């Protein structure tokens, strides 16, 4: 019988030497440290329980799980009693049965009795236990003291808290502590007056520190904490396991359905990336799938000044194909291109790059990784040989020192951040390198050993200073280097970083981080045990993004922190499938599996399978596509699932490029900003409406499973097929699994991947090859993919984006927990209750000097442009640095960002913009004009009346 992945064994698993004991006459063997409760559950002799659940440490409060142990007095709780060799346990004696009934009697004497109309009917552990103990009579009666008139707290947009049903088992409090790490909940009062509280007695869930992750809702055994959707829609009937479509953690969810309606998304316990945890977005913010803004029919128009005209799929495909063919005939083969989506599936992305390479006949294909982690691709390929992180998420549990640079995981990768915080609470040390005092620096029970708040743009200088310390103080692991890396390159690099001009003392003038702190942090990283580096866009979105990635790799190699659990270099990939999009060959210079297009062997493989010859020259990256459009030589583009007008830098330049094109095809869920300048609109499908796979930041390929029919009638991959066939390519795929089979045929690192294998294994981390048939959790274990690890010398080159009297402040950007990137999805859910608008964080000194108070409108201006938004005065940013998010198109944050980018990959330097901030009386003229133009561009012709 297949094990139920959602089974609850009461207390967490332990690992240790086997211990043999007897439970109810049955012999059981479990690892040392396992509780008697878990041992009994594993032996099919489950003991009644209410406060115990195996995602949380045992607590011992309900007193239902009592057992009798031979030779021991009394009736200990099995959840808090570890097994012992030779122990003899009885779980169902008459005395125990009587005690359990006694406990249930007490519970039910203070509980509502209208189960039949309760939203947890048939999904309530209190019901289950009352049934299990055979409760028939509550002899206390129902007139005693109780909590039944406690008011419910319905403040949270997604779940309700009804304390009248609470049995004070503290599972919610413990989940918020142990699983999420936010510590927002507590028990207020004592004794009979004990009640769950989201902070102070006057706090409700919405204004408390609760981040709405849903861990408490999942942990609650009764209806006390329950999703509003269950109350509104009803109990789910079936569940389908799928993968979240928000960030690069890639949480596994059970989509619980009634028919084709999603009742709720419940994090899957056996999800390897999330292990039963979730964040507010994946857990609750899927309502965008049914938002009124969803477009469900294709639309076309000859000019962007015209309103949209809804048409059939056939007409839309034919029109798009004819335009693309016309453009190529007029302007040449290189005049068209495509942008694949980092939010669509691997199969869909593979088809888009196939469309460009086999259909358009060029390599003008790029993806959103351009603007986020392309430096990761470049930097890690150069140093290690693979454009991906080296570990899995589980690895953090073995780290002794965690270095977070340019990332804010509590907001950007919340579920992974919770696992990181769990390890930090156990005693691992934390170093944070960030201009801003992110949450992780000081959060409940976690405090960074070192926060290095460097000047934006000086990452390479700081990392070089750390390398200087490691080399000059003799802290490098030269044995590792000698065995695994090129020793000559190492010596060159070591000599370089050891130069006096690279000491923390000298570089302090550049980084503004006190030298003593840099030295201490470097020593901690080098000597603190297993040291792991986690980094994000604060590393890559800079003019030296690729150099910074290589500097990080250098540090890891120099200290031997590669090739085993607990160490490594971990890029926190942003999008749900950005890793996948890159893997699938979405870069203009690479085929799938990161093989350069100039390589004849790779091309031959594809040419043989596709029956076409491929262009061997690299194609255009997105910024270069826009340049070429402005030049008048790039005229047509197929954009799937990306809003370049909102998310790419230097909005005016993007606008100029789009306006210069003759056929812009946007394939998306909603009429986004880019669609304002599009001529063809293909309505897209959400992750709920299609089958496929996503690959998360761990290189983990996971299934996306369709739970409802696509609102527009076609899944995204079917749309690309439609366009391809309208171009005469004669594609036929019956199911995305066939596309994956093609990927596996053509991509050595994916050779063993198939939907059948994904069914049995659940997920696979590539490379999946003959040598690693079940995937590869930790990379570079014996040798680097490129053979020897390469030390690349990275010297600090200051960015061209300089502050000056006109633009004295530095703007950096980031994101927030409740909204996701450009907010296309989250702005169309109830998450707007948390972050209605982007705000500009500014230090009190700078605010004071400018006469700004929190809530005031301010003008944010750079050399590229200006916009207006409200400010928040806070000392989370250092003086001289301002910060904002980019979730709302009204903010037009990218009007302000510049054309500067990473030297190797053109990843935009979002994180460093010289700006000035001054009081304003409202949105700028640009914003008003833009909004008016957007409204005009979104008009849709009414449907023709039926004949």
């Amino acid at each position: 019988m297949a094990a139920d992945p959602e089974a609850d064994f009461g207390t967490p698993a332990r690992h240790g030497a086997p211990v043999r004991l007897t439970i109810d006459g049955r012999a059981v063997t479990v690892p040392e440290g396992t509780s008697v409760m878990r041992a009994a559950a594993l032996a099919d002799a489950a003991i009644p329980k209410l406060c115990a659940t195996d995602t949380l440490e045992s607590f011992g409060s309900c007193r239902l799980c009592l057992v009798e142990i031979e030779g021991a007095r009394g009736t200990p709780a099995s959840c808090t009693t570890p097994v012992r060799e030779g122990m003899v346990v009885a779980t169902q004696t008459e005395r125990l049965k009587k005690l359990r009934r006694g406990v249930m009697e007490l519970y039910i004497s203070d509980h509502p009795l209208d189960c039949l109309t309760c939203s947890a009917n048939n999904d309530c552990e209190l019901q289950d236990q009352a049934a299990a103990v055979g409760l028939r009579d509550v002899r206390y009666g129902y007139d005693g003291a109780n909590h039944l008139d406690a008011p419910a707290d319905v403040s949270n947009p997604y779940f309700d808290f009804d304390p009248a049903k609470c049995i004070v088992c503290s599972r919610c409090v413990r989940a918020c502590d142990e699983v999420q790490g936010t510590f927002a909940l507590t028990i207020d009062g004592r004794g009979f007056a004990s009640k769950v509280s989201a902070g102070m007695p006057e706090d409700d869930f919405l204004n408390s520190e609760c981040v709405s992750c849903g861990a408490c809702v999942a942990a609650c055994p009764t209806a006390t904490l329950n999703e509003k959707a269950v109350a509104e829609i009803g109990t789910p009937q079936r569940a389908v396991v799928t993968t979240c479509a928000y960030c690069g953690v890639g949480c596994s969810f059970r989509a619980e359905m009634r028919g084709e309606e999603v009742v709720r998304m419940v994090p899957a316990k056996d999800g390897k990336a999330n292990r039963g945890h979730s964040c507010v977005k994946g857990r609750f913010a899927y309502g965008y799938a049914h938002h009124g803004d969803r477009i469900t029919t294709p639309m076309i128009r000859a000019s962007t000044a015209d309103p949209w005209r809804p048409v059939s799929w056939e007409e839309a495909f034919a029109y798009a194909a004819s335009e693309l063919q016309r453009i190529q005939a007029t302007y040449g083969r290189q005049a068209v291109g495509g942008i694949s989506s980092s939010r669509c599936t691997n199969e869909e992305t593979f088809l888009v790059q196939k469309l460009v390479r086999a259909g358009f006949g060029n390599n003008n294909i790029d993806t959103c990784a351009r603007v986020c982690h392309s430096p990761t691709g470049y930097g890690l390929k150069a140093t290690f040989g693979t454009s991906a992180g080296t570990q899995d998420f589980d690895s953090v549990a073995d780290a002794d020192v965690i270095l977070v640079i340019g990332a804010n995981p509590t907001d950007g990768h919340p579920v992974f951040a919770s696992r990181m915080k769990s390890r930090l609470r156990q005693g691992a040390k934390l170093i944070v390198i960030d201009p801003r005092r992110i949450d992780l620096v000081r959060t409940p029970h976690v405090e960074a050993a070192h926060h290095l708040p460097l000047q934006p743009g000086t990452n390479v200088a700081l990392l070089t200073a750390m390398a200087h310390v490691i080399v000059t103080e003799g802290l490098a692991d030269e044995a590792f280097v000698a065995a695994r890396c090129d020793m000559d390159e190492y010596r060159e690099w070591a000599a370089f970083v050891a130069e006096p001009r690279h000491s923390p003392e000298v570089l302090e003038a550049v980084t503004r981080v006190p030298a003593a702190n840099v030295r201490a942090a470097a020593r901690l990283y080098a000597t603190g045990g297993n040291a792991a580096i986690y980094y994000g866009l604060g590393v890559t979105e800079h003019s030296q993004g690729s150099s910074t990635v290589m500097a990080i790799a250098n540090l890891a190699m120099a200290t031997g922190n590669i090739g085993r659990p607990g160490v490594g270099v971990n890029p926190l990939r942003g999008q749900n499938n950005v890793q996948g999009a890159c893997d699938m060959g979405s870069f203009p210079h690479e085929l799938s599996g990161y093989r350069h297009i100039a390589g004849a062997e790779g091309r031959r493989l594809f040419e043989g399978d596709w029956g076409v010859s491929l262009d061997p020259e690299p194609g255009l990256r997105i910024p270069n596509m826009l340049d070429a459009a402005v030049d008048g030589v790039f005229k047509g583009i197929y954009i799937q699932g990306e809003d370049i007008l909102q998310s790419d830098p230097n909005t005016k330049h993007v606008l100029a490029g789009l306006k210069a094109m003759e056929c812009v095809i946007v394939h998306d869920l909603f009429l986004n900003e880019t669609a304002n300048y599009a001529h063809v609109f293909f309505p897209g499908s959400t992750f709920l409406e299609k089958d496929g796979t996503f690959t998360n930041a761990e290189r983990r390929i996971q299934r996306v499973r369709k739970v409802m029919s696509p609102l527009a009638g076609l899944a995204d991959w079917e749309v690309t097929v439609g366009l391809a066939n309208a171009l005469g390519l004669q594609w036929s795929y019956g199911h995305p699994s066939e596309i994956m089979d093609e990927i596996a045929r053509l991509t050595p690192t994916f050779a063993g991947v198939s939907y059948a294998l994904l069914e049995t294994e659940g997920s696979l981390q590539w490379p999946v090859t003959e040598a690693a048939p079940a995937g590869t959790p930790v990379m570079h274990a014996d040798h680097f993919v490129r053979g020897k690890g390469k030390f690349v010398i990275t010297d600090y080159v200051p960015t061209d984006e300089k502050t000056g009297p006109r633009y004295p402040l530095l703007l950096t950007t980031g994101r927030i927990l409740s909204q996701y990137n450009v907010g296309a999805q989250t702005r169309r859910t109830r998450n707007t209750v948390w972050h209605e608008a982007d705000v500009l964080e500014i230090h009190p000194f700078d605010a004071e000097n400018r006469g700004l108070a929190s809530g005031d409108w301010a003008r944010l201006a750079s050399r590229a442009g200006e916009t207006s938004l409200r400010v928040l005065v806070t000392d989370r940013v250092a003086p001289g640095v301002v910060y904002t998010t980019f979730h709302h198109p009204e903010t037009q944050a990218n009007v302000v960002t510049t054309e500067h980018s990473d030297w190797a990959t053109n990843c935009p330097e979002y994180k460093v913009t010289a700006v000035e901030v001054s009081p304003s009386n409202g949105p700028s003229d640009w914003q008003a004009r833009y909004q008016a133009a957007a409204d005009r561009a979104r008009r849709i012709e009414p449907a023709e009346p039926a004949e």
Partner: protein
Amino acid sequence: MRGRGGAGFPAGIKWRTVAEAAGPVKYIVCNADEGDSGTFADRMVMEGDPFALIEGMAIAAFAVGAQKGFIYVRSEYPDAIAKLDVAIRLAAEDIAPFRIELRVGAGAYICGEETSLLNSLEGKRGEVRAKPPLPALQGLFGKPTVVNNVLTLAAVPHILADGAEGYAALGTGRSRGTMPIQLAGNIKHGGLFETAFGLTLGEIVNDIGGGTASGRPVKAVQVGGPLGAYLPPSMFHLPFDYEAFAAADALIGHAGVVVFDDTADMLAQARFSMAFTAAESCGKCTPCRIGAVRGVELIDRIAAGGGRAAGPLERLPQMRNVNARPRSLEEEIGLLTDLCETMKFGSLCALGGFAPYPVMSALCHWPQDFGLAPAVEAAQ
């Protein structure tokens, strides 16, 4: 030396466990929360001879390898707090490098329970922790910790100075050494009386204590605090000894002895035990959190004449499965007995776990106060 706080666990074994535990950081914690009614021995030691306590802690620290110690004293002892504050400063040089810090409680009886005390010291709610793990292995801040009562620690210097054999020669059975017995309540000669284990309860109450202050006959004696059993004069033959008392369903506890004369109403006393438990319950475990409240309600009904008619909810037609017939006094007493059993075997700690002692002993020895015929003995 068995812990004088109430559990009577051999201090030496506890110390050895901590000494052998892995890890460089260890603590000594003195439980000076003396919350039991009718007890004051800890207070008198802290006010009268604080150095004995400090020296005992320093010896313990030396024995187990602890660097830091805490004295957790209840807020209701301002004079002891002031004394200890000065004494710790005066003794600092002598006990260095071991350091002692004084911490003051905030009015919760439950923080006299060692794991609640540790939670309170850590700045958390005074909530009981499940055992295992024992504080000796995972105590304060997760480190191996010795938690001992004031009397236990204060006796240590004397045992070492005067010799262990001498101390062990005193006492009876497995209760060796002396105990400062606190005589209180309706007693003629109240106060602190330190003597070897082994005197009978009668000798203590009558010979030493001089009987009741009121001059009326002794009706009941409660030994061991508000959760100790009530003993009638018929049990005055019991020797003051841990095992002898346990065999009689009573406890020594912290050796508080509270005397009641024949005006005492044992039902009211039983009610007080439940009400006290309800007021002081940390609320974590069900038998104590809900059970103590139900216990008070039950005893109130028994006091009002016994029995329970069906309530308005139970009489509704929608309540099909409910048993709506009235309950007799005997059934209510039976329910009280079952409740006591649930609390005794099901509670997480000794607060809920011992509440049945005073209630069941009152029921057993004075059934007439509960409206039962004197000859009827309630089921155990």
